[in-house]
Protein backbone atom coordinates (compact mmCIF):
# COMPACT_ATOMS: atom_id res chain seq x y z
CA UNK A 1 0.00 0.00 0.00
CA UNK A 2 1.35 3.40 -0.96
CA UNK A 3 2.42 5.79 1.79
CA UNK A 4 1.28 9.36 1.65
CA UNK A 5 4.33 11.65 1.75
CA UNK A 6 2.91 15.13 1.23
CA UNK A 7 -0.61 16.30 1.90
CA UNK A 8 -1.87 19.87 1.54
CA UNK A 9 -5.46 20.70 2.42
CA UNK A 10 -7.52 23.80 1.84
CA UNK A 11 -4.57 26.14 1.27
CA UNK A 12 -5.09 29.81 0.67
CA UNK A 13 -2.29 32.31 0.16
CA UNK A 14 -1.16 35.21 -1.99
CA UNK A 15 0.86 38.39 -2.14
CA UNK A 16 -0.11 41.38 0.01
CA UNK A 17 -3.86 41.65 -0.27
CA UNK A 18 -4.06 39.70 -3.53
CA UNK A 19 -5.30 36.18 -2.93
CA UNK A 20 -3.92 33.64 -5.42
CA UNK A 21 -4.78 30.24 -3.90
CA UNK A 22 -8.38 29.45 -3.02
CA UNK A 23 -8.68 26.35 -0.86
CA UNK A 24 -6.14 24.42 -2.89
CA UNK A 25 -5.13 20.90 -1.90
CA UNK A 26 -3.06 18.05 -3.25
CA UNK A 27 -1.26 14.89 -2.14
CA UNK A 28 1.90 13.09 -3.24
CA UNK A 29 2.66 9.51 -2.28
CA UNK A 30 6.14 8.11 -1.65
CA UNK A 31 8.08 7.43 -4.89
CA UNK A 32 5.24 8.88 -6.95
CA UNK A 33 5.56 11.40 -9.78
CA UNK A 34 2.85 14.04 -9.76
CA UNK A 35 2.55 16.75 -12.38
CA UNK A 36 0.77 19.98 -11.50
CA UNK A 37 -0.40 21.37 -14.80
CA UNK A 38 -1.57 24.90 -15.41
CA UNK A 39 -1.22 27.89 -17.68
CA UNK A 40 0.76 31.03 -16.82
CA UNK A 41 -0.77 32.77 -13.82
CA UNK A 42 -2.69 29.70 -12.65
CA UNK A 43 -0.95 29.84 -9.26
CA UNK A 44 1.54 26.97 -9.68
CA UNK A 45 4.59 28.84 -8.38
CA UNK A 46 2.57 30.32 -5.51
CA UNK A 47 1.38 26.84 -4.50
CA UNK A 48 4.91 25.44 -4.59
CA UNK A 49 6.23 28.40 -2.59
CA UNK A 50 3.61 27.75 0.09
CA UNK A 51 4.49 24.03 0.12
CA UNK A 52 8.22 24.75 0.59
CA UNK A 53 7.60 27.58 3.08
CA UNK A 54 8.70 30.57 1.01
CA UNK A 55 5.20 32.03 1.30
CA UNK A 56 3.03 31.69 4.40
CA UNK A 57 -0.23 29.76 4.16
CA UNK A 58 -3.07 32.11 5.10
CA UNK A 59 -5.15 29.08 5.96
CA UNK A 60 -5.04 25.32 5.49
CA UNK A 61 -2.60 22.64 6.55
CA UNK A 62 0.46 20.95 5.06
CA UNK A 63 1.72 17.56 6.24
CA UNK A 64 4.98 15.95 5.22
CA UNK A 65 5.49 12.38 6.40
CA UNK A 66 2.36 12.83 8.55
CA UNK A 67 4.02 15.75 10.39
CA UNK A 68 2.38 19.16 10.35
CA UNK A 69 4.90 21.44 8.62
CA UNK A 70 2.56 24.35 7.87
CA UNK A 71 4.49 26.82 10.07
CA UNK A 72 8.01 25.49 9.49
CA UNK A 73 10.68 27.60 7.77
CA UNK A 74 12.06 26.47 4.36
CA UNK A 75 15.34 25.26 5.91
CA UNK A 76 13.38 23.14 8.40
CA UNK A 77 11.45 21.55 5.52
CA UNK A 78 14.64 20.88 3.55
CA UNK A 79 16.11 19.21 6.66
CA UNK A 80 13.12 16.84 6.51
CA UNK A 81 14.27 15.91 2.99
CA UNK A 82 11.85 18.00 0.98
CA UNK A 83 13.91 19.72 -1.73
CA UNK A 84 12.84 22.53 -4.02
CA UNK A 85 14.13 23.51 -7.42
CA UNK A 86 13.07 27.03 -8.38
CA UNK A 87 12.95 28.26 -11.96
CA UNK A 88 16.46 29.72 -11.48
CA UNK A 89 17.59 26.65 -9.57
CA UNK A 90 21.27 27.55 -9.14
CA UNK A 91 23.61 30.22 -7.81
CA UNK A 92 25.24 31.59 -10.99
CA UNK A 93 28.04 33.29 -9.05
CA UNK A 94 29.18 30.09 -7.31
CA UNK A 95 30.99 27.08 -8.75
CA UNK A 96 29.24 23.86 -9.72
CA UNK A 97 30.75 22.05 -6.73
CA UNK A 98 29.71 24.84 -4.36
CA UNK A 99 26.17 24.66 -5.74
CA UNK A 100 26.06 20.93 -5.03
CA UNK A 101 27.49 21.42 -1.54
CA UNK A 102 24.75 23.94 -0.81
CA UNK A 103 22.14 21.48 -2.07
CA UNK A 104 23.58 18.83 0.24
CA UNK A 105 24.21 21.11 3.23
CA UNK A 106 22.26 18.86 5.61
CA UNK A 107 23.79 15.60 4.38
CA UNK A 108 26.68 14.23 6.53
CA UNK A 109 30.07 14.98 4.84
CA UNK A 110 31.03 11.39 3.97
CA UNK A 111 27.57 10.69 2.58
CA UNK A 112 27.66 13.96 0.62
CA UNK A 113 30.98 13.04 -1.02
CA UNK A 114 29.47 9.75 -2.19
CA UNK A 115 26.31 11.53 -3.28
CA UNK A 116 28.28 14.07 -5.31
CA UNK A 117 30.29 11.31 -6.99
CA UNK A 118 26.99 9.65 -7.98
CA UNK A 119 25.61 12.93 -9.29
CA UNK A 120 28.73 13.62 -11.37
CA UNK A 121 28.24 10.15 -12.90
CA UNK A 122 24.61 10.94 -13.66
CA UNK A 123 25.49 14.37 -15.04
CA UNK A 124 28.87 13.85 -16.77
CA UNK A 125 28.72 17.29 -18.43
CA UNK A 126 29.07 18.82 -14.96
CA UNK A 127 31.88 16.58 -13.76
CA UNK A 128 34.58 18.19 -15.90
CA UNK A 129 33.53 21.67 -14.84
CA UNK A 130 33.16 21.26 -11.11
CA UNK A 131 35.27 24.35 -10.36
CA UNK A 132 33.66 26.48 -13.09
CA UNK A 133 31.09 29.11 -12.22
CA UNK A 134 27.49 28.08 -12.82
CA UNK A 135 27.12 31.27 -14.84
CA UNK A 136 29.48 29.78 -17.44
CA UNK A 137 27.01 26.93 -18.20
CA UNK A 138 24.45 26.91 -21.00
CA UNK A 139 20.75 27.14 -20.12
CA UNK A 140 20.29 23.38 -20.41
CA UNK A 141 23.37 22.62 -18.33
CA UNK A 142 22.21 25.07 -15.66
CA UNK A 143 18.91 23.21 -15.50
CA UNK A 144 20.82 19.93 -15.06
CA UNK A 145 22.87 21.57 -12.30
CA UNK A 146 19.64 22.76 -10.69
CA UNK A 147 18.33 19.19 -10.65
CA UNK A 148 21.67 17.85 -9.38
CA UNK A 149 21.78 20.53 -6.66
CA UNK A 150 18.30 19.60 -5.45
CA UNK A 151 19.15 15.89 -5.58
CA UNK A 152 22.32 16.46 -3.54
CA UNK A 153 19.98 16.88 -0.55
CA UNK A 154 19.04 13.19 -0.96
CA UNK A 155 15.38 14.20 -0.81
CA UNK A 156 12.32 12.05 -0.33
CA UNK A 157 10.37 14.61 -2.34
CA UNK A 158 11.69 16.94 -5.03
CA UNK A 159 9.41 19.87 -5.79
CA UNK A 160 10.21 21.44 -9.18
CA UNK A 161 8.98 24.72 -10.57
CA UNK A 162 8.76 24.65 -14.37
CA UNK A 163 11.93 22.70 -15.20
CA UNK A 164 11.23 23.34 -18.89
CA UNK A 165 11.26 27.14 -18.53
CA UNK A 166 13.59 28.77 -21.04
CA UNK A 167 14.68 25.48 -22.61
CA UNK A 168 14.56 24.36 -26.22
CA UNK A 169 12.46 21.22 -26.97
CA UNK A 170 15.69 19.23 -27.25
CA UNK A 171 16.76 20.14 -23.73
CA UNK A 172 13.22 19.58 -22.42
CA UNK A 173 13.43 15.99 -23.70
CA UNK A 174 16.82 15.66 -22.00
CA UNK A 175 15.42 16.91 -18.68
CA UNK A 176 12.54 14.45 -18.93
CA UNK A 177 14.97 11.62 -19.72
CA UNK A 178 17.06 12.50 -16.66
CA UNK A 179 14.02 12.65 -14.39
CA UNK A 180 12.78 9.32 -15.75
CA UNK A 181 16.02 7.73 -14.49
CA UNK A 182 15.02 8.61 -10.93
CA UNK A 183 11.66 6.88 -11.15
CA UNK A 184 11.68 3.73 -9.10
CA UNK A 185 14.52 4.97 -6.86
CA UNK A 186 12.16 5.93 -4.05
CA UNK A 187 12.21 9.61 -4.96
CA UNK A 188 8.85 11.36 -5.23
CA UNK A 189 8.51 14.21 -7.71
CA UNK A 190 6.05 17.08 -7.73
CA UNK A 191 6.53 18.98 -10.99
CA UNK A 192 4.68 22.21 -11.72
CA UNK A 193 4.60 22.65 -15.48
CA UNK A 194 2.71 24.12 -18.38
CA UNK A 195 4.53 21.88 -20.84
CA UNK A 196 2.37 18.79 -21.41
CA UNK A 197 5.45 16.77 -22.43
CA UNK A 198 6.00 16.17 -18.70
CA UNK A 199 2.77 14.15 -18.56
CA UNK A 200 4.90 11.25 -19.89
CA UNK A 201 6.45 11.06 -16.42
CA UNK A 202 3.29 11.40 -14.40
CA UNK A 203 1.65 8.77 -12.22
CA UNK A 204 -1.02 11.32 -11.40
CA UNK A 205 -1.95 14.81 -12.55
CA UNK A 206 -3.53 17.86 -10.98
CA UNK A 207 -4.66 20.80 -13.05
CA UNK A 208 -4.62 24.24 -11.49
CA UNK A 209 -6.69 27.12 -12.77
CA UNK A 210 -7.23 30.45 -11.02
CA UNK A 211 -5.67 29.11 -7.84
CA UNK A 212 -8.09 26.17 -7.62
CA UNK A 213 -7.51 22.50 -8.39
CA UNK A 214 -9.61 21.59 -11.42
CA UNK A 215 -8.76 17.97 -12.10
CA UNK A 216 -7.07 15.25 -10.10
CA UNK A 217 -6.40 11.77 -11.45
CA UNK A 218 -4.38 9.71 -13.90
CA UNK A 219 -3.11 10.92 -17.27
CA UNK A 220 -5.58 8.62 -19.03
CA UNK A 221 -8.47 10.10 -17.07
CA UNK A 222 -7.19 13.60 -17.83
CA UNK A 223 -7.43 12.96 -21.55
CA UNK A 224 -10.81 11.27 -21.20
CA UNK A 225 -12.32 14.14 -19.25
CA UNK A 226 -10.84 16.74 -21.58
CA UNK A 227 -9.60 18.51 -18.43
CA UNK A 228 -6.46 19.51 -20.30
CA UNK A 229 -8.42 21.84 -22.55
CA UNK A 230 -10.27 23.28 -19.59
CA UNK A 231 -7.02 23.94 -17.72
CA UNK A 232 -5.49 25.77 -20.64
CA UNK A 233 -8.38 27.35 -22.48
CA UNK A 234 -11.03 27.65 -19.79
CA UNK A 235 -13.44 25.58 -21.90
CA UNK A 236 -16.42 23.78 -20.42
Amino acid at each position, binding site marked *: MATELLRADDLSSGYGKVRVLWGTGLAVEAAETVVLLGANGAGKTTLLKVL*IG*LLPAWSGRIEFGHEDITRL*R*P*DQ*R*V*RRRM*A*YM*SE*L*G*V*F*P*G*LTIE*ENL*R*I*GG*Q*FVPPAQLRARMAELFETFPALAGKRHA*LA*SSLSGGQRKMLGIA*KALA*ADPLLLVMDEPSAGLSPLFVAEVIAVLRRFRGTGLALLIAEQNVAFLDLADRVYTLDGGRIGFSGTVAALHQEDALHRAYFGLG
Partner: protein
Amino acid sequence: MLAHAILSGLVFGCYFTLVGLGLNLIFGVMRIVNLAHGDVVMLGAFAAFWLFALIGLHPLISSLIVLAIFALLGLPVYYLVVPRLLAARDSEMLSIILFFGVQQIIEAIATIAFGTSERSIPGRVLGSGPLHLLGQALPVAWVVSAAVSLLAVALVYLYLYRSRVGTLTRAVMVNRDEALASGIDVHRVSALAFGIGVALAGLAGVFSPFMLGSATPAMGGDVNLAAFAVIVIGSLGDPRGTMLGGLIYGVALMLMQTYMSAWANLLPNLLLIAVLLVRPTGLLGRQVRRA
Protein backbone atom coordinates in the same frame (compact mmCIF):
# COMPACT_ATOMS: atom_id res chain seq x y z
CA MET B 1 59.41 60.61 -2.21
CA LEU B 2 57.30 58.72 -4.75
CA ALA B 3 58.47 55.33 -3.47
CA HIS B 4 57.70 56.36 0.10
CA ALA B 5 54.24 57.61 -0.89
CA ILE B 6 53.44 54.37 -2.71
CA LEU B 7 54.75 52.10 0.05
CA SER B 8 53.00 54.00 2.83
CA GLY B 9 49.93 54.08 0.57
CA LEU B 10 49.97 50.28 0.38
CA VAL B 11 50.31 50.10 4.17
CA PHE B 12 47.37 52.47 4.58
CA GLY B 13 45.54 50.52 1.90
CA CYS B 14 45.62 47.40 4.07
CA TYR B 15 44.09 49.42 6.91
CA PHE B 16 41.42 50.99 4.68
CA THR B 17 40.53 47.52 3.38
CA LEU B 18 39.68 46.63 6.98
CA VAL B 19 37.69 49.87 7.32
CA GLY B 20 35.61 49.03 4.23
CA LEU B 21 35.30 45.25 4.55
CA GLY B 22 32.71 45.15 7.33
CA LEU B 23 30.50 47.65 5.53
CA ASN B 24 30.76 45.71 2.28
CA LEU B 25 30.10 42.36 3.93
CA ILE B 26 26.91 43.67 5.52
CA PHE B 27 25.78 45.30 2.29
CA GLY B 28 26.66 42.23 0.23
CA VAL B 29 24.76 39.78 2.42
CA MET B 30 21.81 41.90 3.56
CA ARG B 31 21.57 44.64 0.93
CA ILE B 32 21.34 47.21 3.70
CA VAL B 33 23.49 50.31 4.06
CA ASN B 34 24.94 50.62 7.55
CA LEU B 35 25.48 54.36 7.80
CA ALA B 36 26.44 53.86 11.45
CA HIS B 37 29.55 51.93 10.32
CA GLY B 38 31.86 54.91 10.91
CA ASP B 39 30.45 55.39 14.39
CA VAL B 40 31.10 51.74 15.24
CA VAL B 41 34.70 52.42 14.18
CA MET B 42 34.65 55.43 16.52
CA LEU B 43 33.34 53.28 19.40
CA GLY B 44 36.18 50.79 18.76
CA ALA B 45 38.66 53.67 18.92
CA PHE B 46 37.28 54.91 22.24
CA ALA B 47 37.17 51.39 23.65
CA ALA B 48 40.88 50.99 22.85
CA PHE B 49 41.64 54.48 24.19
CA TRP B 50 39.89 53.96 27.53
CA LEU B 51 41.27 50.44 27.97
CA PHE B 52 44.74 51.91 27.45
CA ALA B 53 44.18 55.08 29.53
CA LEU B 54 42.45 53.41 32.47
CA ILE B 55 44.19 50.05 32.83
CA GLY B 56 47.11 50.38 30.44
CA LEU B 57 45.89 47.57 28.20
CA HIS B 58 47.98 47.07 25.07
CA PRO B 59 45.97 47.82 21.87
CA LEU B 60 46.73 44.35 20.49
CA ILE B 61 44.98 42.82 23.50
CA SER B 62 42.22 45.44 23.29
CA SER B 63 41.69 44.43 19.66
CA LEU B 64 40.82 40.86 20.72
CA ILE B 65 38.41 42.12 23.38
CA VAL B 66 36.81 44.60 20.96
CA LEU B 67 36.48 41.90 18.29
CA ALA B 68 34.69 39.54 20.67
CA ILE B 69 32.42 42.12 22.32
CA PHE B 70 31.46 43.92 19.10
CA ALA B 71 30.68 40.61 17.34
CA LEU B 72 28.49 39.56 20.26
CA LEU B 73 26.75 42.96 20.32
CA GLY B 74 26.15 42.73 16.58
CA LEU B 75 24.03 39.58 16.91
CA PRO B 76 21.17 41.00 19.03
CA VAL B 77 21.27 44.24 17.00
CA TYR B 78 20.81 42.15 13.88
CA TYR B 79 17.81 40.26 15.22
CA LEU B 80 16.30 43.45 16.62
CA VAL B 81 16.62 45.55 13.48
CA VAL B 82 17.52 43.75 10.28
CA PRO B 83 14.72 41.17 9.80
CA ARG B 84 12.18 44.03 10.05
CA LEU B 85 14.18 46.06 7.53
CA LEU B 86 14.41 43.15 5.12
CA ALA B 87 10.66 42.60 5.32
CA ALA B 88 10.10 46.17 4.11
CA ARG B 89 9.42 46.93 0.46
CA ASP B 90 12.49 49.16 0.00
CA SER B 91 14.91 47.85 2.60
CA GLU B 92 17.97 49.61 1.14
CA MET B 93 16.43 53.07 1.37
CA LEU B 94 14.87 52.34 4.75
CA SER B 95 18.23 51.13 6.08
CA ILE B 96 19.88 54.40 5.06
CA ILE B 97 17.28 56.37 7.00
CA LEU B 98 17.34 54.06 10.02
CA PHE B 99 21.12 53.82 10.34
CA PHE B 100 21.46 57.56 9.77
CA GLY B 101 19.33 57.96 12.89
CA VAL B 102 21.43 55.39 14.75
CA GLN B 103 24.58 57.23 13.67
CA GLN B 104 23.25 60.52 15.06
CA ILE B 105 22.28 58.88 18.35
CA ILE B 106 25.66 57.16 18.80
CA GLU B 107 27.53 60.37 17.97
CA ALA B 108 25.41 62.45 20.35
CA ILE B 109 25.79 59.99 23.22
CA ALA B 110 29.55 59.68 22.58
CA THR B 111 29.92 63.47 22.57
CA ILE B 112 28.07 63.75 25.88
CA ALA B 113 30.08 60.90 27.38
CA PHE B 114 33.57 61.64 26.02
CA GLY B 115 33.49 65.35 25.15
CA THR B 116 34.76 66.77 21.88
CA SER B 117 38.50 66.53 22.61
CA GLU B 118 40.74 64.51 20.34
CA ARG B 119 42.02 61.32 21.98
CA SER B 120 45.06 59.39 20.92
CA ILE B 121 47.28 56.52 21.95
CA PRO B 122 51.03 57.08 21.57
CA GLY B 123 52.39 55.28 18.51
CA ARG B 124 55.34 53.95 20.52
CA VAL B 125 52.94 51.58 22.31
CA LEU B 126 53.00 49.44 19.16
CA GLY B 127 56.79 49.74 18.80
CA SER B 128 59.39 52.50 18.79
CA GLY B 129 61.49 53.86 15.98
CA PRO B 130 60.90 53.65 12.26
CA LEU B 131 60.82 50.32 10.46
CA HIS B 132 62.79 50.06 7.22
CA LEU B 133 60.83 48.37 4.45
CA LEU B 134 62.20 48.25 0.90
CA GLY B 135 64.53 51.11 1.73
CA GLN B 136 61.75 53.31 3.13
CA ALA B 137 61.32 54.26 6.78
CA LEU B 138 57.78 53.79 8.11
CA PRO B 139 56.43 54.20 11.66
CA VAL B 140 56.15 50.82 13.38
CA ALA B 141 52.59 51.66 14.47
CA TRP B 142 51.54 51.93 10.82
CA VAL B 143 53.13 48.62 9.89
CA VAL B 144 51.65 46.79 12.90
CA SER B 145 48.19 48.26 12.21
CA ALA B 146 48.47 47.22 8.56
CA ALA B 147 49.66 43.73 9.50
CA VAL B 148 46.74 43.22 11.90
CA SER B 149 44.37 44.55 9.23
CA LEU B 150 45.82 42.18 6.66
CA LEU B 151 45.48 39.25 9.05
CA ALA B 152 41.84 40.12 9.79
CA VAL B 153 41.06 40.52 6.08
CA ALA B 154 42.77 37.18 5.30
CA LEU B 155 40.73 35.45 8.02
CA VAL B 156 37.50 36.90 6.59
CA TYR B 157 38.44 35.69 3.11
CA LEU B 158 39.28 32.24 4.52
CA TYR B 159 35.88 32.23 6.22
CA LEU B 160 34.09 33.23 3.02
CA TYR B 161 35.98 31.06 0.53
CA ARG B 162 37.17 28.06 2.55
CA SER B 163 34.45 27.33 5.10
CA ARG B 164 31.04 25.73 4.77
CA VAL B 165 29.24 28.67 6.40
CA GLY B 166 31.25 31.00 4.16
CA THR B 167 29.91 29.25 1.07
CA LEU B 168 26.38 29.64 2.43
CA THR B 169 27.13 33.33 3.10
CA ARG B 170 28.26 33.85 -0.49
CA ALA B 171 25.15 32.04 -1.71
CA VAL B 172 23.03 34.59 0.18
CA MET B 173 25.13 37.36 -1.42
CA VAL B 174 24.48 35.96 -4.89
CA ASN B 175 20.73 35.49 -4.51
CA ARG B 176 18.85 35.73 -1.23
CA ASP B 177 15.62 34.20 -2.60
CA GLU B 178 17.43 31.22 -4.10
CA ALA B 179 19.27 30.81 -0.80
CA LEU B 180 15.95 30.61 1.04
CA ALA B 181 14.61 28.15 -1.54
CA SER B 182 17.74 26.01 -1.10
CA GLY B 183 17.09 25.63 2.61
CA ILE B 184 19.79 28.01 3.83
CA ASP B 185 18.94 29.51 7.22
CA VAL B 186 19.34 32.99 5.79
CA HIS B 187 18.86 34.82 9.09
CA ARG B 188 21.50 32.77 10.88
CA VAL B 189 23.99 33.34 8.05
CA SER B 190 23.12 37.06 7.90
CA ALA B 191 23.38 37.48 11.68
CA LEU B 192 26.87 35.95 11.58
CA ALA B 193 27.87 38.28 8.74
CA PHE B 194 26.43 41.26 10.63
CA GLY B 195 28.37 40.29 13.77
CA ILE B 196 31.58 39.90 11.75
CA GLY B 197 30.97 43.25 10.00
CA VAL B 198 30.47 45.08 13.29
CA ALA B 199 33.53 43.34 14.81
CA LEU B 200 35.68 44.37 11.82
CA ALA B 201 34.53 47.97 12.24
CA GLY B 202 35.43 47.82 15.95
CA LEU B 203 38.86 46.38 15.11
CA ALA B 204 39.44 49.16 12.57
CA GLY B 205 38.56 51.57 15.37
CA VAL B 206 41.22 50.16 17.70
CA PHE B 207 43.93 51.07 15.19
CA SER B 208 42.40 54.35 14.03
CA PRO B 209 44.33 56.48 16.57
CA PHE B 210 47.54 55.22 14.94
CA MET B 211 46.41 55.49 11.33
CA LEU B 212 44.12 58.51 11.43
CA GLY B 213 45.99 60.43 14.17
CA SER B 214 43.29 60.63 16.83
CA ALA B 215 39.74 59.72 17.73
CA THR B 216 36.79 62.06 18.27
CA PRO B 217 33.05 61.36 18.58
CA ALA B 218 32.55 63.16 15.26
CA MET B 219 35.01 61.03 13.25
CA GLY B 220 32.31 58.61 12.02
CA GLY B 221 31.28 60.71 9.03
CA ASP B 222 34.79 60.90 7.58
CA VAL B 223 35.39 57.20 8.21
CA ASN B 224 32.11 56.39 6.43
CA LEU B 225 33.14 58.44 3.42
CA ALA B 226 36.48 56.63 3.19
CA ALA B 227 34.77 53.23 3.63
CA PHE B 228 32.24 54.00 0.89
CA ALA B 229 35.02 55.17 -1.46
CA VAL B 230 36.92 51.91 -0.84
CA ILE B 231 33.98 49.61 -1.51
CA VAL B 232 32.63 51.57 -4.46
CA ILE B 233 36.08 51.52 -6.12
CA GLY B 234 36.33 47.73 -5.65
CA SER B 235 32.76 46.60 -6.16
CA LEU B 236 29.77 47.19 -3.95
CA GLY B 237 28.69 43.90 -2.39
CA ASP B 238 31.77 41.95 -3.53
CA PRO B 239 34.24 41.42 -0.66
CA ARG B 240 37.08 40.52 -3.07
CA GLY B 241 36.93 43.99 -4.55
CA THR B 242 37.40 45.62 -1.13
CA MET B 243 41.12 44.76 -1.01
CA LEU B 244 41.66 46.32 -4.43
CA GLY B 245 39.59 49.35 -3.44
CA GLY B 246 41.48 49.72 -0.16
CA LEU B 247 44.90 49.61 -1.83
CA ILE B 248 43.92 52.08 -4.56
CA TYR B 249 42.43 54.40 -1.96
CA GLY B 250 45.49 54.16 0.31
CA VAL B 251 48.00 54.84 -2.46
CA ALA B 252 45.89 57.68 -3.89
CA LEU B 253 45.58 59.23 -0.42
CA MET B 254 49.33 59.12 0.20
CA LEU B 255 50.12 60.49 -3.27
CA MET B 256 47.69 63.35 -2.65
CA GLN B 257 49.12 64.04 0.79
CA THR B 258 52.64 64.03 -0.66
CA TYR B 259 52.10 66.14 -3.76
CA MET B 260 48.79 67.99 -3.23
CA SER B 261 48.26 67.95 0.50
CA ALA B 262 45.71 70.79 0.47
CA TRP B 263 43.44 68.61 -1.69
CA ALA B 264 43.91 65.35 0.20
CA ASN B 265 40.69 65.67 2.21
CA LEU B 266 38.71 65.82 -1.01
CA LEU B 267 40.04 62.47 -2.16
CA PRO B 268 37.14 60.22 -1.04
CA ASN B 269 34.63 62.50 -2.75
CA LEU B 270 36.70 62.73 -5.93
CA LEU B 271 37.21 58.97 -6.11
CA LEU B 272 33.53 58.27 -5.43
CA ILE B 273 32.42 60.67 -8.16
CA ALA B 274 35.03 59.39 -10.64
CA VAL B 275 34.15 55.71 -10.13
CA LEU B 276 30.40 56.32 -10.19
CA LEU B 277 30.74 58.28 -13.45
CA VAL B 278 33.20 55.99 -15.24
CA ARG B 279 32.45 52.52 -13.87
CA PRO B 280 29.46 52.48 -11.51
CA THR B 281 29.78 48.72 -10.92
CA GLY B 282 33.27 49.21 -9.43
CA LEU B 283 36.51 47.84 -10.86
CA LEU B 284 35.54 44.22 -10.22
CA GLY B 285 31.86 44.69 -11.08
CA ARG B 286 30.37 42.09 -13.37
CA GLN B 287 26.99 41.57 -14.95
CA VAL B 288 26.54 38.31 -13.08
CA ARG B 289 26.83 38.79 -9.34
CA ARG B 290 29.71 36.75 -8.08
CA ALA B 291 30.63 36.54 -4.43
